[in-house]
């Protein structure tokens, strides 16, 4: 669908526009949420993200691509959730429990994924993911997995392009060190 038409529809609060937006972006945004928050329960966060889009779409001036703006909102929602979790200790406990569930009982696509992966490699992968910081996970996800441009990532995390490049460089280095440490198998 034409992005301009979609944005117009979103600004006019047309339901069809939100439906189209959901169909196009929910998988991408859900994937970012899953990666950043390290959880499979992305529905509530995704819902919050779309409500935030609904509330603030009028502020979207079109300076950046719609997808960049959506990613930025998603990252901000995730940051708020992480801040809340850190603030409340009981939330932290819940989070750890969820983390354990995440490791032991991966849902849906994860199960399929596990089937096609060697057991040992899977455990190693989880180990590495768990050791990466939130920011490292986000940067690697946006650049190396989703293939976004540095300028887009800079817009999303609200940092200069140079900072993004430097942070990503160190994130990759840390990841490579970890892969080396756990001796992640290449099949």
């Amino acid at each position, binding site marked *: 669908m034409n992005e301009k038409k979609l944005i117009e529809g979103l600004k006019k*609060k047309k*339901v069809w526009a*939100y*439906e189209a937006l*959901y*169909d196009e972006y*929910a*998988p991408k945004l*859900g*994937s*970012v*949420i*899953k*990666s950043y928050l390290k959880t499979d329960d*992305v*529905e509530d966060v*995704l*819902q919050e993200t*779309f*409500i935030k889009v*609904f*509330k603030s779409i009028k502020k979207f001036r079109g300076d950046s691509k719609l997808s960049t703006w959506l990613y930025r909102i998603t990252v901000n929602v995730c940051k708020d959730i992480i801040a809340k979790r850190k603030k409340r200790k009981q939330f932290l406990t819940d989070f750890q429990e969820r983390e354990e569930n995440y490791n032991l009982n991966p849902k*849906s*696509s*994860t199960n399929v*994924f596990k089937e096609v*992966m060697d057991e040992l*490699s899977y455990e190693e*992968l989880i180990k*590495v*993911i768990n050791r990466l910081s939130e920011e490292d996970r986000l940067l*690697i*996800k946006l650049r*190396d*997995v989703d293939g976004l441009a540095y300028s887009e990532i800079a817009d999303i995390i609200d940092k200069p392009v140079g900072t993004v*490049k430097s942070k*990503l*460089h160190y994130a*990759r*280095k840390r*990841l*490579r060190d970890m*892969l*080396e440490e756990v001796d*992640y198998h*290449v*099949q």
Partner: protein
Amino acid sequence: MFNNDNFDRLINNKNKPQDIDQQEKEEIKKYLKFVEAYKQKTSYNPGENTKDRVLSKIKKRKFIPYRIAVAAAACLLVLFTGIDFISNNTIIIANKNASETNSEIERNVDLSNFEDIDEELVRRSVGFFNESDNTESDYMVLGTGF
């Protein structure tokens, strides 16, 4: 192990590494394998239920201003009806003997309150209710209503 920015350059450009040794090739392969695995690990396919939930929340939010407008209109209607009712049911009780300038007593009489009040008590208190007995009263009713 890479000790310069070659790794970033190779990963960013996605070029086939040619001027690197076997160990570096392995490292790139390992990294790309991890990225591919991570991509699958974080892939997300939203269900129809989630979509319905999100869209219904958005629809609810969309109609909030209309709901507020309807509620405000209803409140105003009740308010004006109430004011109209009270002003149409106002009686003025004036002292017959006093001069007009300083003896008028205006009271709002709520009909519903009279149901529970002893009639005799009312008769004694306000003589104008006792017109059938030709009882003299010091007060007269000037308003409209009932």
